[in-house]
Structures are given as structure tokens and as C-alpha cells.
């Protein structure tokens, strides 16, 4: 049985250094499974955990092509929030945000949920109207939101000089205090550990090559480690959704685009909140400071489909430009690392969680660049869909059919252009 982590445990273990045990055991795949989850990222692991914990399915496998937590869950800007405009998105992300609040104790793994506030800045009065619209919609849905004027922004973020001469002066902002950050690696490891303790098989270095069908029904998957039997197959491969779909012959409303993120050298605390400063075409950056001290920031997508994981350096330049304009103090900080993640960008910028056709095949994807914050809600609802075969109310808006029926969830009004979502 898994041992609980606590400060006392650490002290005892320190005295007996040989006593550490794996966070999750390595097991070879051994079907047949009730459910095979393809993808050992945040969504796949969370789904496995809730399947085992809330729906009693113990014959569950998570098949991961590389390493647990090595995809987007381990390379994002770690922001969690529920400050969405559309009520369908609000309900879903709010469910997630509530779960973040209690997840560390539930998993007995410190995922470091830090409700330090997420502040969307406005640089023009028309932005303020858009923020007021969004904030009021949030409040009607029972989500916390505050509209700050310029002085309010100055009070909440003293590090931000709102009076400084700027090309685009800061006029206010929309604050969600319960928004914040979560330690990304810990989410993957915490869910993996908790799922494994409930009997889930976590199989790393196992690439799924195709679906296996027997007598016209799903019978499992073909992998580079052979056939693995399972009644139900659930895909949760985020940035690799398009390439996996191509392999499985599925047509989906999504494309793969790159999003870059950057981190500076670690420094003493200089920013205690999450700032989002997006002025389309001019400067786009969102930034927070990790507990380790680095400023973690990112901007817009690279602008065209790509699976190379090497982004365009001009995009890094643009985001540095926006950050130094927002916080001039950062101009002498140094960029330590930047990386590109593959994003499964949908045609309306919102995710897809659905059962595909009449088969026991399920899809969880299209997370665009916002999948990290969704992990607990997505895992919980996806598990329910797989276990019960019925779509829970929370994720009904995310069905695939919405594109053809017109029920698209286009937060930004950007239209069927994934590069602009």
C-alpha cells in the first residue's frame, strides 16, 4: 500500500535513506482492460484516477508514448482560472478551479495551487467594456470577479507602474482572485501516483499504433509493445490528437499549432499575481513568477500548423517586447529557457469531449492552449462519460456535433481559424 507523504514521514525517511518507494510502479501492459487510456498527460492520468476512484473501474491502463508528464502538462505556463465569457465554459472551468483547491490533500501530493489572482489588463475603454461583459457574466454564474480601475490595478499590483508613459496606457483590469497557478509537474506525478495506488497500470514508452477490432467491435489497441486488449479506448493525447487522428483515419475539427513559452532566470519575488496583457496585433503577453523565482511567460501561437517543437524566434522576440513594455524592470532579466508545445487547436477554440460514433471509442482533446487548467474537471467528466456511456451535463456543450449544428463555443469570435483562436 502506498505510504502517505507528510513532514514526519520525510524526517523518518531521511534517517533511512533506502526506504523510498516509486511514486508509481512500472508495470508491463497486461490486458484485458475495461478501459485503455491513450496518453499519459494530465487529462489521461486524471481520467484514470477518477475511473478508479469514483466509478470503481480498476482494470484501467494508461499508455504513454514517452514519459508521464512529458507533454503539455509539463510545459505550460501553469495558469488556472475560470474567467471565461461563455456560460458553458464558465461552468466547466469553475468546476475545475474548485477541484484544484482541494486536490493536493485529495491526492496527498502538493500540487501547489496558488490562488494569487489572475488579472486581465485593459488598455482601452473598449477593452473595459469587454471585461465588464465577461466579469458580469462570471458573477451571474457565481464566479468571483472584480473590475479594477487604473488605481485599483496600481493597488493590486504595486510592481506595475500604471502611471508610466506607455504606448497603450493601462486603464483597468478584470481580476479573478481565486485564479492563480499550479505546479505543473506535480499534477502529472500526483495523479499518476494516486491512480497507480488504486490499481491503474501506468505504462510508459508504449506507443499506440492503431485500434484493434474484432468482429467489427473495438477489442483494444495495437501498440509497439503488441496487442493490448480492452473493451473501451479513450484518447487523451492533447497536442498529438491530429497526428493520432490521421493514423486512425478520423476527420476532426482541429489542427496542430505551436505555442511558445519562456522562463527567465530565478530572482527574488517581483510579481505576486498572474498578469494577462493581450492587445491583439500590438503586444500580447501573460506572465507570472514561479515559486522557484523565474518569470514564466508566453504570448500568441506561432501562427501556422507545425509539429516541429521548434518555434519561430521572431515570436520569442515579440513576447519579450510585450513583457518589457509591460514591466520595464524585466528588461535586464535574462531569458533562461524557451520551448514550444504542440497545441490541438480546434475551430472554435473550445475542447472536444465526446464518444465517437457507436463504437466504444472516446475522445478528449482540442484543448488548444488551455488544457492544463481543465485537468481535474475534464478527467472527472470524461471518466463519467466512459464509465456510464452518457455525456454528463457539464461537458454536453463540448460534443463534436456542435460544429455542424452551429452550437460553437467561440469565446473570442475568431471564427473557424485555429491560428487566431
Amino acid at each position: 500500500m502506498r505510504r502517505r507523504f507528510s513532514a514526519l514521514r520525510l524526517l523518518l525517511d531521511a534517517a533511512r535513506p533506502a526506504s523510498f518507494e516509486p511514486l508509481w510502479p512500472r508495470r508491463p501492459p497486461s490486458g484485458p482492460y475495461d478501459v485503455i487510456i491513450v496518453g499519459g498527460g494530465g487529462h489521461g492520468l486524471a481520467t484514470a484516477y477518477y475511473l478508479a476512484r469514483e466509478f470503481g473501474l480498476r482494470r484501467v491502463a494508461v499508455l504513454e508514448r514517452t514519459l508521464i508528464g512529458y507533454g503539455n502538462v509539463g510545459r505550460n505556463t501553469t495558469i488556472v482560472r475560470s474567467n471565461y465569457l461563455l456560460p458553458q465554459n464558465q461552468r466547466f472551468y469553475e468546476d475545475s478551479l474548485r477541484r484544484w483547491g482541494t486536490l493536493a490533500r485529495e491526492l496527498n501530493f502538493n500540487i501547489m495551487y496558488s490562488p494569487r489572482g489572475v488579472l486581465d489588463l485593459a488598455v482601452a475603454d473598449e477593452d473595459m467594456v469587454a471585461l465588464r461583459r465577461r466579469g458580469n457574466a462570471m458573477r451571474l454564474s457565481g464566479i468571483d470577479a472584480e473590475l479594477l480601475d487604473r488605481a485599483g490595478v496600481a493597488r493590486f499590483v504595486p510592481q506595475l507602474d500604471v502611471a508610466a508613459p506607455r504606448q497603450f496606457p493601462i486603464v483597468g483590469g478584470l481580476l479573478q482572485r481565486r485564479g492563480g497557478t499550479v505546479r505543473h509537474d506535480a499534477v502529472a506525478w500526483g495523479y499518476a501516483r494516486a491512480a497507480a495506488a488504486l490499481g491503474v497500470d501506468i505504462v510508459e514508452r508504449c506507443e499506440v499504433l492503431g485500434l484493434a477490432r474484432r468482429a467489427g467491435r473495438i477489442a483494444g489497441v495495437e501498440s509497439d509493445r503488441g496487442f493490448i486488449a480492452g473493451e473501451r479506448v479513450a484518447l487523451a493525447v492533447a497536442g498529438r490528437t491530429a497526428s493520432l487522428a490521421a493514423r486512425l483515419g478520423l476527420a476532426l475539427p482541429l489542427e496542430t499549432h505551436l505555442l511558445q513559452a519562456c522562463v527567465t532566470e530565478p530572482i527574488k519575488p517581483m510579481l505576486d499575481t498572474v498578469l494577462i496583457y493581450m492587445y491583439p496585433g500590438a503586444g500580447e503577453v501573460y506572465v507570472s513568477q514561479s515559486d522557484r523565482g523565474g518569470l514564466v511567460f508566453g504570448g500568441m501561437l506561432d501562427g501556422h500548423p507545425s509539429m516541429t517543437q521548434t518555434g519561430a524566434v521572431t515570436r520569442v522576440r515579440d513576447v519579450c517586447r510585450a513583457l518589457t513594455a509591460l514591466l520595464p524592470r524585466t528588461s535586464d532579466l535574462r531569458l533562461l529557457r524557451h520551448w514550444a508545445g504542440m497545441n490541438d487547436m480546434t475551430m472554435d477554440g473550445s475542447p472536444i469531449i465526446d464518444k465517437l460514433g457507436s463504437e466504444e471509442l472516446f475522445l478528449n482533446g482540442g484543448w488548444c492552449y488551455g488544457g492544463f487548467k481543465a485537468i481535474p474537471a475534464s478527467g472527472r467528466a470524461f471518466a463519467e462519460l466512459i464509465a456510464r456511456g452518457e455525456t454528463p451535463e457539464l461537458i454536453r456543450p463540448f460534443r463534436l456535433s456542435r460544429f455542424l449544428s452551429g452550437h460553437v463555443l467561440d469565446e473570442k469570435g475568431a471564427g473557424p481559424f485555429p491560428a487566431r483562436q
Partner: protein
Amino acid sequence: MSDGAKRGGRRMLIRCPFCGERDAAEFQFRATLPDLQGTAAERLYLRRSDPHRSIEHWQHVGGCQLWLELTRDLTSGAVLEVSAELTRDLARGAEH
């Protein structure tokens, strides 16, 4: 680490039929070519793209403004083909 092999280090250049070989930064992507089967809505939204042969429409905004049809390998970033003759009648929403 196996990902390493796939990282293309090549410069991404696009040979504009009008202007010659130019840096990709001069071009702007608009859309991936849809599946040409199905209803107008399916053609607008659904993609069945081969990661090694993605057919896309780009405009040379930093040059002659010409629209180009590019065939790209998304896994390496390589531009495989460039054509100024775009696939026509995509009917992205123009008929029932």
C-alpha cells in the same frame, strides 16, 4: 531522447513564384485545405490531414501579396511544394 531526431533545424524558406526564395516570416498562413468531401459545414470544419503532407494556403504579405498553396511536412517544418495555383471552389460555406 527520441524527440531530438525530429526537430528540424533547417531554415524555413518559401520559394515565392513571383519574388524568389524568402524567409517564412514574410508569409502569413490562413487555412489548411479541408477535405473536399461532405457538406459545406463539414468542409469548413473537418480536417483529415496527413502530418507529412499538409496542404495550406498562405499569403506573401511581406512581399507581392500573392496567395500560395504550400505543401508542408509538419513534422520537420520542410516546405515540400509551392504553387501559385490554388485549389479552387473550396466553397468554404458558399453552398448548401
